């Protein structure tokens, strides 16, 4: 079985592989949604359909030794960074074979082999944590970079303000990536946020900032490379706002009926899959036939996977009592 790291490495410099990973995420989320609807998945799920370009843009620019503090909207970033559909789906289904052994669930993925810190279900919590990881890199004089990935709604919480201020004053190697998908739960951004361009909030910290088209992997990469390079070379933090759109509902069974007429349709024209397909076709890396084949394969593979994972073992009762405190003998 290919490791998370191998899956991650497959992305570098390979736009077709990135496209296929985007398709994987898209189909994975659809199947997840179906499994939740039929009751096979319990609890909650947060899909990132329509936001694949951002996660792939990140995964293909960051190094596996860089770390990412993300959120409950975790499947897409997890798969992009390299976690296998098996380990993610198994976690969402609470199986022992999941990336957190089934005790985490949909909101909590983790795989340090590709730098995914345990994703947090608390808005804003990952922002100071990412700054802290960057602090460690700075003290250790390593050239690793930390990234916080969070939503538009998260820019209204205190941890955002404190995390960015601290990163600025200490010139930490961190990139703050705001996935502005226009909604925080069921609220459209203007209901909760007095400004449209969130990246300007970096001005409060004299921090470089930018806005980019989160539907286009090239635009994402271009912006991130600038920010990541700045961080890696001692230039300090950057606030990057990626303009995306949440094609799916917020979570669970949300149908997103609160959307203005035609908004979804307008954004669907910018569907990152379409955008990437056009690009790859133009570059003769893809054909419409190939696209259909890729998608078909993916659906088949993931459908088979879902059946397989359903049969995976559940965690032992002992898992409930493990990894809470560190066994002391392990210490110096």
């Amino acid at each position, binding site marked *: 079985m290919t490791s998370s790291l191998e899956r991650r490495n497959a992305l570098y410099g390979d736009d077709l592989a990135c496209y296929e990973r985007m398709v994987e995420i898209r189909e994975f989320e659809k199947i997840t949604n179906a499994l939740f609807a039929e009751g096979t998945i319990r609890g909650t799920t947060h899909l990132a359909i329509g936001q694949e370009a951002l996660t792939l843009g990140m995964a293909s620019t960051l190094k596996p030794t860089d770390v990412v503090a993300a959120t409950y909207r975790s499947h897409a970033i997890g798969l992009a960074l390299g976690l296998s559909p098996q380990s993610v789906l198994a976690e969402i289904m609470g199986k022992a074979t999941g990336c957190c052994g089934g005790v985490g669930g949909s909101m909590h993925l983790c795989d340090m082999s590709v730098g995914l810190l345990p994703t947090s279900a608390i808005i804003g919590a990952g922002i100071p944590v990412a700054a802290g990881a960057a602090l460690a890199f700075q003290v250790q004089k390593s050239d690793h970079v930390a990234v916080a990935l969070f939503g538009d709604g998260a820019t209204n919480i205190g941890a955002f303000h404190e995390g960015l201020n601290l990163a600025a004053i200490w010139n930490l190697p961190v990139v703050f990536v705001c996935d502005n998908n226009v909604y925080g739960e069921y609220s459209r951004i203007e209901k909760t946020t007095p400004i449209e361009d969130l990246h300007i909030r970096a001005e409060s910290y004299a921090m470089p900032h930018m806005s980019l088209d989160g539907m286009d992997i090239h635009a994402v990469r271009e912006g991130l490379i600038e920010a990541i390079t700045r961080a890696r070379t001692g230039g300090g933090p950057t606030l990057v706002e990626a303009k995306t759109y949440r094609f799916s509902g917020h979570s669970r069974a949300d149908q997103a009926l609160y959307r203005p007429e035609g908004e979804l349709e307008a954004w669907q024209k910018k569907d990152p899959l379409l955008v990437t397909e056009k690009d790859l076709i133009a570059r003769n890396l893809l054909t419409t036939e190939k696209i259909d084949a890729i998608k078909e394969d993916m659906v088949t593979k993931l459908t088979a996977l879902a059946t397989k994972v359903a049969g995976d073992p559940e965690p032992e009762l002992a898992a*409930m009592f493990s990894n809470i405190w560190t066994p002391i003998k392990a210490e110096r």
Partner: protein
Amino acid sequence: MGAMRFRQAIVAALADEMRADSRVIFFGEDVAEAEGPFKTSEGILEEFGSSRVRDTPISEMGFTGAAVGAAMMGLRPVIEIMFIEFLGVALDQVVTEAAKTRYLSQGALSVPMTIRASVGSGLGFGCQHSQTLEHWFASTPGLKVLMPSDAQSAYSLLRAAIQDPDPVIILEPRILYAERGEVDKNIVSTIGKARMRSTGNEITIVALGQMVNVAEEAIKISGISADLIDLQTIIPWDRDAVIDSVKKTGRLVVVEEAPLSGGWGSEIVAHVTSKLFSTLKSPPFRITAPDVPVPFNGTLEGRYAPTAADVTRQILHALKSSDVPEPWWVLEGMNR
């Protein structure tokens, strides 16, 4: 009288208070237009309008503090904290500001605010969205903390909380939102008063929220004769009701959903022990969750909070012998 869901009882209580008192306002994340992530404010925006019913940005410190300030100025804000864990970013406003305002103003100000928060395990929300966290509010003179166990108490406690002149936190077991029950709208609880779910003379069972229902189930299964006390108010708790019952039964068990160490049940056990020591027939004890985070996996999560089977086993043991039954994780060799 009428049957309704627990969450509908919450809506009804809020609506009745908002009709009766124009000082009552309500806000939180997606509580207005979306009518609440758990549909606990259906129709509230429509009936009371956008001045009194508001959606907030994601900023618990900001809007909890806003409730404190609005309450100081004479309104009666009710706020919704979607999951109790979110108060971890706003606790200061509750315990250090709201709870001390009346004291520091020497009674010139009070803070008649109500914080509604969903709590508890059992729904697969994982370890950051499944705790009860009553202990965050312990040892904080000035606060009151309530927990309903059915539709009736969801209605009656919320009305009492909104009418109360001091800061009240009402912890709603999320797992009960969809449960149906009879609701008599003429009943408004008295804060600090427990409610008898059943009466008997072999043992006193003290429980809160969902654990009241679990304990009731255990009584059915075991056929024992017990006083089942639904505490309803955890701070300040009904010392008289518990003491009187234990005087009668001579035995006490507290059933709680929180981890054993530092749970609220220890307060009940410690108080009763110091008051009734010589009259106790057997040692008071607690049936709790183990000292672990709430696991996501359904089978494991099903073992987290005490089950009717656990409670039955331990109570039957306690009635037969004078030592305290071990929790399942000790019997199964899981940990201390």
